[in-house]
């Protein structure tokens, strides 16, 4: 009856409006579901917005939640460009946080100007190594990277649980499994009331845009994503590019770990990544792997998350409503991609189109 035909005539404006319609559809569907469970959806949505924009403090909270999402998404986008499915960002964040915490806890007598760069470097190295392990096996033996990176998340998490309740347990915490708070010289300084990570984030977004679109290595990464064989034929060292790009991908995620322990929590816990590694996969995908768009999508997701937390405290409605809305938006946007790339035409009409093209 219908036939699927590839679209070639869609303008940028139209494809954006398709996505907006999808988001509206998701909000509507979730609204019906929320209403069905006996809550007022309009009130919930308005309160969620209020939770992010209602006061300067809440807005800052939303920005603080945006930062880790953006940097992680940048890291993931490098891997995804090569069609290397790095879903191990969660673990890479954790390991970055772990390495940064080591210096914060055991080298705390260093001056702040030395300690912070040291923590930063440590998180870069640790996150990078955690990503390099699966990348090495992928490049060398073709080991499935999706599942490998996924497993690495759990190993990182269990490792920190072990450290939190064992090796690094704070003896002053009265038996509770907690790691000691950092000293002040291990805390990221604040600019406009938000830790300095936001400036680094903006810098990283710009650098990433230039790296992907204006450098040779960025171009090579894109070619590998399109076709590994083409890349090889063109004389690129595919193995080396995979390894170095994954090192970069993991390093960026590692930085997020440093931001979180040094700028937000001021201590390490096994929940430091808090699902950011998984949410970022989705924001990266929704943003079409483009660095500037990532910033917008991540901010919207952070607003949802912050809104969810707010309504939990304000109305004792479970914060999971944010996840519900996120999941629904994803379904709709993923679905709308189809209508952006293809169109359905009636069968006899399709025949006439084909005939016309043949002529």
């Amino acid at each position, binding site marked *: 009856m219908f036939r699927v035909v590839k679209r070639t005539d869609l303008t940028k404006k139209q494809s954006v409006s398709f996505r907006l319609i999808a988001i509206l559809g998701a909000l509507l569907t979730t609204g019906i579901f929320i209403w069905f469970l006996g809550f007022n959806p309009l009130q919930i949505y308005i309160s969620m917005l209020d939770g992010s924009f209602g006061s300067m403090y809440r807005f800052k909270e939303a920005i603080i939640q945006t930062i880790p999402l953006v940097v992680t998404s940048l890291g993931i986008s490098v891997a995804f460009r090569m069609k290397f499915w790095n879903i191990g960002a969660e673990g890479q964040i954790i390991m970055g946080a772990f390495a940064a915490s080591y210096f914060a806890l055991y080298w705390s007598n260093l001056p702040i100007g030395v300690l912070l760069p040291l923590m930063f470097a440590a998180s870069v190295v640790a996150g990078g190594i955690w990503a390099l392990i699966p990348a090495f096996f992928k490049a060398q*033996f073709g080991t499935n990277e999706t599942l*490998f990176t996924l497993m690495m998340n759990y190993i990182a998490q*269990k490792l920190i649980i072990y450290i939190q*309740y064992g090796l690094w347990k704070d003896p002053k915490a009265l038996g509770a499994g907690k790691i000691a708070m950092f000293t002040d010289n291990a805390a990221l300084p604040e600019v406009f009331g938000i830790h300095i990570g936001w400036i680094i984030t903006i810098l990283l977004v710009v650098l990433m845009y230039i790296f992907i679109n204006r450098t040779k290595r960025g171009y090579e990464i894109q070619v590998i994503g399109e076709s590994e064989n083409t890349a090889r034929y063109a004389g690129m060292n595919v193995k080396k590019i995979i390894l170095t790009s994954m090192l970069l991908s993991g390093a960026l995620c590692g930085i997020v770990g440093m931001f979180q322990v040094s700028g937000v929590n001021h201590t390490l816990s096994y929940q430091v990544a808090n699902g950011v590694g998984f949410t970022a996969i989705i924001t990266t995908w929704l943003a079409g792997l483009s660095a500037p768009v990532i910033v917008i999508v991540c901010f919207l997701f952070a607003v949802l998350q912050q809104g969810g937390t707010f309504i939990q405290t304000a109305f004792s409605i479970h914060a999971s409503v944010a*996840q519900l809305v996120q*999941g629904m938006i*994803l379904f709709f946007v993923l*679905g709308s991609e189809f209508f952006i790339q293809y169109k359905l035409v009636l069968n006899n009409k399709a025949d006439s189109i084909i005939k016309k093209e043949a002529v």
Partner: protein
Amino acid sequence: MNFISILTFVLTGAVTAGTPLLFATLGEIITEKVGQLNLGVEGMMLMGAVIGFSAALSTGNPAVGVLAGMIAGSCGALIFAFLTITLRANQIVSGLSLTIFGTGFSSFVGQKMAGQSLPESVRNSFIPVKIPLLGDVPVLGDALFNQNILVYSGYVIAILLAIYLLKTRIGLNLRTVGENPGSADTAGINVSLYKYVHILLGGALCGIGGAYMSLVTVPSWQDGVTGGRGWIAVALVIFVTWNPYKAMLGAYFFGALSILGLYLQSYLPIPQSIFDMLPYLATIIVLIVISLKKSKENRPPKALGEPYFREER
């Protein structure tokens, strides 16, 4: 306790703890065999857990609970199937979205039931029933044949699924769809139909796995009741190299690891978290070994995770 009773205790616990893993693993095996990588296992399990619990709570009927869990799991799988097959969306992203959605769904729907316990009528239906003769065998009899009805269903479903996959015509067709959808299509197999049916079936099995957690393991509602078991199941599928028989061994082995950790803690200076790491480490080792060997039997289905569009061949 002497050695025999310790062994019996550990093995019985391994089978009980391994059963939800078994259901979810079987569900993911059949999904992956038909060529779709669904990372929404955790989400489908949680949907099954919350809907199964709420159905059992309101009707007092355990069978209704399990059935409702199955339906909830396949509803989740239906979203995945529609997105990835009909709308051609990326499988990894769709699966992850399903997990995010399912987690939110279960917390949100379950918030009103927090801490509530199931009625006696439901809990009593899941007490161990000894199978005569087989149950009298020392150690193994107690571990395998003095269990609740869902554990027994697990054995039956695993064996039936193995026969279905490996010995029937439809099983052959579905494996072809997972290996090479192009030639399956040429041979007149309805690729989309095969994918849809088996993804839904896989979702139903994941739903039972989730319902097992909320009905049997923890018979009161607890947020996030599956505790990451969906992800372990994804790992287990590789660990058992897509074989339903081995899935039983693998699931009980992983179950034993979780029990052993609890037990050995008081004797050895090895903390629980290190034991919890073992399933994931074991899976990574299996992944590497598979990629080194390149043997035909143990490798993933060839078209796993790859979309199939007839027009773009």
